[in-house]
């Protein structure tokens, strides 16, 4: 299979991740639940994962790294900690439904900092204007899951700090490929999945807490058991119930893999593949690609449309040739509105550290055949 849907989930994982998952299945039970060997093995792996993430993302205290089910889980905690029912929120025009649906459920008064695709200065200006009106929180993705567009989160974080408005950062598409330092950014929360650019298994994610969170769920934590209130301290406050130890062990191995390969190499590799795909597609009749002229402004995601053809038809035709891409709205209709592709969506290809030029060439050959 030619897999070009890493923005959804990186399908190819380092062998160390698979081995760590299997080892956890063999040797680990529940952390924080006993003094016996399998519980201790789980505790050590969990703490190692937390510590590695804290170091990688500049979180001073490992206990402020929360293991979640996915980025959506982390974003829900962050949003529901900062935004009261009917509260006012500023978001970028490139947010995912993982942001907009919780806000809708809260009945939030959402102000979208609208800006054109790949126009960083316009994005900064839009946030600056919106922040002047005040809000309970601002939310910005680092990288659009539809276009790979890298938003100016550093500048937006500075604006939020000046305005005294807490910032929630969605690092779903950038974690593992773009360095992010929580302490320097000064964000209230940063959420990310474990199963995309961190190369962990599905069902894992991280929430980095710069602010004090509210609980999303309550339950057993293996601590302060006689009290009915959830512990006030992290990570226990946010980690009720049994941990996904095979997933966390795999995520820990994924973090080690990224540290050894480096995010810069991964990002350069992904950008190079996207450019190759864009160049090949651009020469095809009726194809429009959404490529930034600025190499650094786009990560390993490329959207395109084909005049007169449904996106899903293209995707289905590729699937029949065992080539995996994603078509439609990518759970981000707001981004499609901002990028001008709300009428029908796009076909999206996205890559990881494991795809090669040859994969792109097979995809391009298939596209020539389909068109």
């Amino acid at each position, binding site marked *: 299979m030619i897999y070009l849907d890493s923005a959804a989930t990186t399908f190819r994982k380092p062998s160390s991740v698979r081995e760590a998952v299997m080892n956890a299945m063999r040797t680990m039970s529940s952390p*924080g639940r006993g003094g016996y060997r399998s519980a201790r093995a789980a505790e050590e792996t969990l703490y190692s994962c937390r510590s590695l993430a804290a170091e990688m993302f500049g979180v001073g205290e490992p*206990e402020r790294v929360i293991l979640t089910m996915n980025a959506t889980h982390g974003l829900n905690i962050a949003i529901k900690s900062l935004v009261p029912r009917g509260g006012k929120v500023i978001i970028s025009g490139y947010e995912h439904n993982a942001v907009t649906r919780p806000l809708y459920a809260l009945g939030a008064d959402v102000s979208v900092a609208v800006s054109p695709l790949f126009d960083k200065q316009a994005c900064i200006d839009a946030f600056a204007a919106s922040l002047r009106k005040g809000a309970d929180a601002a939310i910005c993705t680092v990288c659009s899951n539809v276009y790979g567009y890298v938003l100016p989160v550093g500048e937006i974080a500075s604006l939020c700090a000046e305005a005294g408005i807490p910032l929630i950062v969605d690092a779903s598409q950038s974690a593992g490929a773009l360095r992010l330092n929580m302490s320097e950014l000064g964000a209230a929360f940063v959420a990310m999945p474990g199963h995309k650019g961190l190369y962990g298994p599905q069902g894992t994610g991280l929430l980095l807490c710069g602010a004090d969170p509210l609980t999303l769920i309550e339950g057993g934590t293996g*601590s302060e058991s006689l009290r009915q209130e959830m512990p006030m*301290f992290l990570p226990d406050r946010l980690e009720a119930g049994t941990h996904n130890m095979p997933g966390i062990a795999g995520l820990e191995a994924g973090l080690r893999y990224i540290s050894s390969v480096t995010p810069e190499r991964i990002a350069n590799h992904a950008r190079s593949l996207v450019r190759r795909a864009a160049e090949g597609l651009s020469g095809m009749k009726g194809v429009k690609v959404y490529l930034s002229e600025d190499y650094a402004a786009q990560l390993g995601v490329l959207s395109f449309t084909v005049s007169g053809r449904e996106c899903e038809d293209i995707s289905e035709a590729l699937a029949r040739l065992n080539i995996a891409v994603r078509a439609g709205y990518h759970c981000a209709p707001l981004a499609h509105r901002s990028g001008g592709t709300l009428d029908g969506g796009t076909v999206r290809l996205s890559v990881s550290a494991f795809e090669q030029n040859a994969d792109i060439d097979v995809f391009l050959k298939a596209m020539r055949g389909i068109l």
Partner: protein
Amino acid sequence: MDHFIFTARSVTHAQRMAQVLERSGIYVSIHRAGAAITGNGCGYTLQVPSRQFKRASELLRSSGQHPVKAFHVINGQRQEVAL
């Protein structure tokens, strides 16, 4: 034989304290603890050799990783000590 124990809020807190001490060459063991020690139900403790208790207390204080309580254990009998 006697030793000291520090109580921790959680396993993560115990691991954080252990990391601070081990970086300074004080090797400790982590154990489960019941309500009789924690007062709040399940918790964790770090067991520290007596000769290293004072230095360990100072290291934890200076690192901001304050134990919840400390006990001197002599022949299996615990006596809470001031931190």
